[in-house]
């Protein structure tokens, strides 16, 4: 009997193993002859530059790694690197779930420890996520018998390090759709063009592609095909976008987007007659449309969802309006840029619809609104939900990048650790609006041009466009222009621009007569109100100078002048002011030449009379005072002589 039981158990175990083995079949194993590329998608790729932190006990965070469904994954592993910190003795643990399935649970030691775990994943794990791998990180534990106290204790944290990543082994000949490729493309992306001067549409395509990728968090650089080399990479650490203008027969006025293989990895190619049209498909919200390995694009323009003539719905801006359970405090942050605004408008007010349940004692919550971290309004919310709160935005507060923060606070009931504080729901409703008003005709600050470029921007150049010259343009495009906006490159020799422009020229753009800063008058010196020098630059000027200018016809634009091949920062956020000096590290100084009285531009080599007067003011006034003193002495002497005619002088 016992022997039969043992045999049955053995059979059962074998059967179970077979089933489990069949169920847990890993992704297709790479054979020894198949070429494989390794893609590591780390937390920085997802926007967590410094990793993330689980504070306290009982905290949970979800992280979504992109794993497009059409991506042929041979093998997948989740590599977790973490550090724990704790102050008190207790029981604590870390759980990791992948698409809801627990894959790791381990206790944590008192005091802290460093964890590195490699978790293999199977096809089922990848397939369950519907294009994403949801990794849930959860901390739990208990220090005392008082759950309330436990929740409030500080000093407990688990740092998920930036080295945490998802490893995907892919076949080297994998050809996902363009949309999928964009999802998993590494952070470093190189936009490749052919060497030598580029055609306007090629340059526009390269810029549009770089702009769209930069907006998605990529680090973009430009190079030529020859310089890139094309050496095959096994660790897929750089993405490539290839841009060229080709006459592809019937596609002369269209652009083509297709996934190709370059340097051993999937790459995106933009070609045909209008590669710039194809490039626009890389921008939100059109990106998901590129769901095939190749796509022909005849037109693609950005659209602004949630926009009415009166304003923009907050739900269509960047921010999370989800409901929160707030015992004491809940906050929502919505960000928007001046480039999100329709042309000719400015932020005027916020119309916020807030729903916040009163607490159990019927006490109402209080809402406070911050605009760019300035408190612009607060109100006690009504008992009836929702509550509409209209807050005007003071003039001068908005800039290039803006941030609206709503904080709802209420007095917490409890807190004596006998009862847990009761969290009640609160939400910023999607009907909330950013109301707009008409902007003044002539922009006086850089950021005021951004809305005017919403429907397209003209870029003026005076030199042949090469891959190397695209970086400064991208530095401005990514901060001032919405991805996907049409770009038109135009030589400066073609005359004044008919529309608001970005000029990258050595001389003032055509049609511009007066500029705040000139470069044809020798050395440049910035002085303060008292005439003391603040900054002096050689005749060449700073490495990068941006100025807000207007043509004689009143068309505004930004003129960017670069000293030689000076390095350019990745992004140039020109906000307030109409003159900015920048270098490789970013903006060194920005001011409004017409409005700002604290800084003045002078030219020591060719001073104007007013500058000379200011320079030598004490001497000039001193000389006048001496002359005045001589006059007064003369008067006194004459009067004395008149009173004393016999004393050596003739009477007057």
């Amino acid at each position: 009997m016992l022997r039969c039981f043992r045999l049955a158990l053995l059979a059962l175990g074998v059967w179970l193993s077979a089933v489990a083995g069949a169920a847990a079949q890993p992704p297709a194993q790479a054979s020894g002859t198949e070429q494989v590329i390794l893609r590591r998608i780390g937390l920085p790729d997802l926007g967590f530059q410094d990793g993330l932190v689980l504070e306290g006990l009982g905290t949970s965070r979800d992280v979504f790694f992109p794993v497009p469904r059409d991506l042929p994954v041979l093998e997948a592993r989740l590599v977790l690197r973490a550090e724990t910190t704790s102050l008190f003795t207790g029981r604590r643990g870390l759980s990791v779930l992948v698409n809801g399935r627990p894959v790791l649970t381990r206790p944590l030691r008192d005091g802290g420890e460093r964890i590195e775990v490699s978790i293999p994943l199977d096809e089922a794990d990848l397939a369950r996520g519907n294009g994403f791998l949801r990794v849930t990180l959860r901390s739990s534990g208990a220090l005392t018998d008082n759950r309330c106290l436990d929740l409030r204790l500080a000093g407990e944290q688990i740092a998920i390090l930036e080295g945490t990543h998802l490893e995907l082994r892919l076949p080297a000949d994998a050809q996902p759709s363009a949309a999928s490729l964009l999802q998993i493309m590494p952070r470093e992306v190189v936009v490749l063009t052919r060497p030598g001067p580029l055609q306007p549409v090629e340059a526009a395509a390269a810029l549009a592609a770089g702009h769209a990728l930069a907006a998605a968090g990529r680090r973009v650089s430009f190079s030529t095909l020859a310089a890139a080399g094309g050496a095959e990479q096994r660790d897929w650490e750089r993405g490539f976008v290839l841009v060229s203008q080709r006459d592809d027969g019937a596609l002369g006025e269209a652009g083509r987007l297709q996934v190709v293989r370059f340097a051993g990895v999937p790459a995106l190619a933009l070609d045909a007659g209008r590669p710039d049209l194809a490039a626009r498909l890389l921008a939100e919200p059109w990106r998901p449309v590129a769901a095939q390995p190749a796509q022909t694009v005849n037109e693609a323009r950005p659209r602004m969802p949630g926009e009415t003539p009166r304003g923009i719905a907050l739900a269509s801006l960047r921010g999370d309006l989800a409901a929160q359970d707030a015992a004491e405090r809940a906050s929502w942050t919505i960000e928007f840029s001046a480039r999100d605004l329709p042309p000719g408008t400015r932020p005027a007010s916020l119309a916020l619809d807030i729903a916040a349940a009163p607490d159990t004692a019927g006490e109402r919550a209080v809402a406070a609104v911050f605009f760019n971290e300035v408190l612009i309004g607060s109100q006690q919310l009504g008992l009836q939900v929702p509550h509409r709160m209209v807050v005007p935005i003071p003039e001068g507060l908005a800039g290039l990048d803006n941030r609206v923060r709503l904080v709802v606070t209420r007095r917490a009931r409890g807190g004596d650790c006998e009862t847990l504080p009761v969290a009640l729901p609160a939400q910023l409703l999607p009907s909330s609006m950013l109301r707009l008003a008409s902007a003044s005709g002539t922009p006086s600050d850089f950021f005021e041009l951004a809305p005017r470029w919403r429907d397209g921007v003209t870029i003026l150049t005076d030199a042949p466009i090469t891959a190397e010259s695209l970086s400064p343009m991208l530095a401005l495009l990514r901060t001032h222009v919405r991805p996907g906006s049409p770009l038109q490159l135009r030589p400066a020799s073609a005359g004044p621009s008919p529309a608001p422009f970005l000029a990258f020229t050595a001389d003032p753009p055509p049609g511009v007569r007066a500029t705040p800063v000139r470069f044809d008058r020798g050395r440049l010196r910035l002085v303060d109100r008292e005439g003391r020098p603040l900054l002096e630059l050689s005749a060449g000027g700073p490495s990068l100078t941006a100025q807000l200018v207007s043509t004689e016809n009143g068309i505004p634009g930004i003129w960017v002048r670069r000293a030689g091949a000076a390095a350019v920062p990745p992004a140039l956020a020109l906000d307030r002011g109409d003159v900015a000096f920048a270098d490789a590290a970013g903006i060194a100084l920005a001011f409004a030449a017409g409005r700002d009285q604290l800084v003045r531009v002078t030219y020591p080599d060719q001073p104007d009379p007013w500058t000379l007067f200011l320079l030598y003011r004490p001497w000039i006034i001193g000389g006048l005072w001496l002359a005045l003193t001589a006059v007064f002495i003369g008067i006194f002497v004459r009067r004395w002589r008149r009173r004393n005619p016999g004393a050596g002088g003739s009477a007057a």
Partner: protein
Amino acid sequence: MRAEEELIGDLLVARGVLDLAALDEARALAERWKVPLADALMARRALRPLDYYRTLAQHFDLELADLRSDPPDPTLLDPALAQEYVREGVIPWRRDERGIITVAVTSPGPAAVLAARRLTGQRQLRLAVCTRFDVSIAVQRAFRSELVRKAVYGLAETDPDMSARRVVTDPQLLFFYLLLTLLAAGLAFAPLTTLIGLNLLMSVFYLGNFVFKGVLAWAGGLAGEGSARALETAARLLREDELPTFTVLVPMFREPEVLPILAHALRNLDYPLGKLDIKIVLEEKDEETIAAARALGLEGVFEIMIVPASQPQTKPKACNYALQFARGDYLVIYDAEDKPEPDQLRKVVAAFRAAPPNTACIQCRLNYYNARENWLTRMFTLDYSLWFDLMLPGLERLGVPIPLGGTSNHFRTEVLRELSAWDPFNVTEDADLGIRLTQKGYRVGVIDSTTFEEANCRQGNWIRQRSRWIKGYMQTFLVHTRRPIHLLRTVGPLGMLGFVFFIGGTMLSGILNPIFWTIFGFWALTQTGVFDPVFPPLILWLSVMNLLLGNALFIYLTMVAPFRRRWLELAPWALTVPYYWVLLSIAAYKALWQLIRKPFYWEKTQHGLSKQMAEELAKAGVAARP
């Protein structure tokens, strides 16, 4: 009436010099006015003065002295007694071979004998008869240089600190120099702070100016009508015999055409003509006006006085000269084109009698009879209405020193002589005298009686006139700030404040206005930010308040100014007063320039330009000149 006068009157009729009706009228007037018969006869132009005195001489069997062709022996005359000769009507004439002095008298009698003995120191004398005018002329000729010297330098020698002969004193010069040095240092080393400080100072000054004048107008508006009615009643109740002799000075220069208007107005005064001592004061070189005055054949109460040519040739010097011959207890100055209200002198006498004993001057109001001639006369009328009908009573009510206005200032003659009268070096001698009176412990009263005159109807002429006034205000300001502590002690803090804002404010606002209006206009047109550093928020708001509220207040005050006279049709014209201020600023800069270059130059205002002048001359019984 004395028995002698009765006899003289009969003699005049017997000799056919006077008819009986005229004699009876003169006798009645003399009785009513309680004046000598001679004065009543002269007032009625019943006979020539020479005929009267010839008859007088015949009556007393005395020689008739013709002092013009046979002037007095200068060795017999004493300059110190010049005024007594005129006042007593007694002057030593000649000495005979026995050493007996013949004294010419205007009214032989015991009083004349006693006066002659006192003035000559002789007991044995011989008398002769002469006309009153001859005594005056003889004194003027004999003591010409002394009289002129006293007229010009009287104040400068007795009270040099109060004389504008020196435009600025040495301490003042030094003070200005130190101020300019401070300013230069500030501009050199902290220009922005200095400019902000200056701006703040000027803004506060403007604010003070607006507030002060607003308070003045409010205080002046509180003056009731009741006091005016009481004064009118008191004036009417005065008997002619109790009215004192009133000296009327009429200084003129190159304006022969307008004299008939004043003569007509004076004749129409409700005041005994025989008690008026009217002196037409003319400059020696103004032959045209002298000839015209003589040709008018004025009554004997009008005396033409010729002021010897001397510098400065100004109205106050002429008045100082004439003052030495004044016989009245009270004295008033009228311009030639003035038309005082008929009961003005009575009201003044009543006011003096009701006023505190230290009242030295009564100022009447001025206004214009050609107010509606053109835009300028309307604005001038509004200007004067605001000043005389609102601000002047306000000054009196608040106890602030009153800068007297041009004409219709009525003085106690003795106080004038005590203070050495007017400053001939100040071109607004009236304003200066008003401040000086207060500093010396006297007060100025204001009554509701108006003198109408001709408003300037041409802008160029107006600017010349106003520039003289402003220059005079500058002189007055400089003179009375020489001793600021003394000024403060004598007029008090409120008086000092009033002096600074009224005298200083009037001249300074004219100079500063163009600067601020230009800044405002330039900013409005160009929206430039170049002025922003000099207008930090506090000063910006202060300046905006001055610009809007201050100017609105002034326009409002100008609008309500004519209400007291019920001239409501003038009120809407007040909205154009900003252009009037432009003219005022032009005049202010002209004044400043003249203060430096020609401080004592009297910018003569031409009269007789008004269209209404012909009407007034016709009323005065003379055809207008085309």
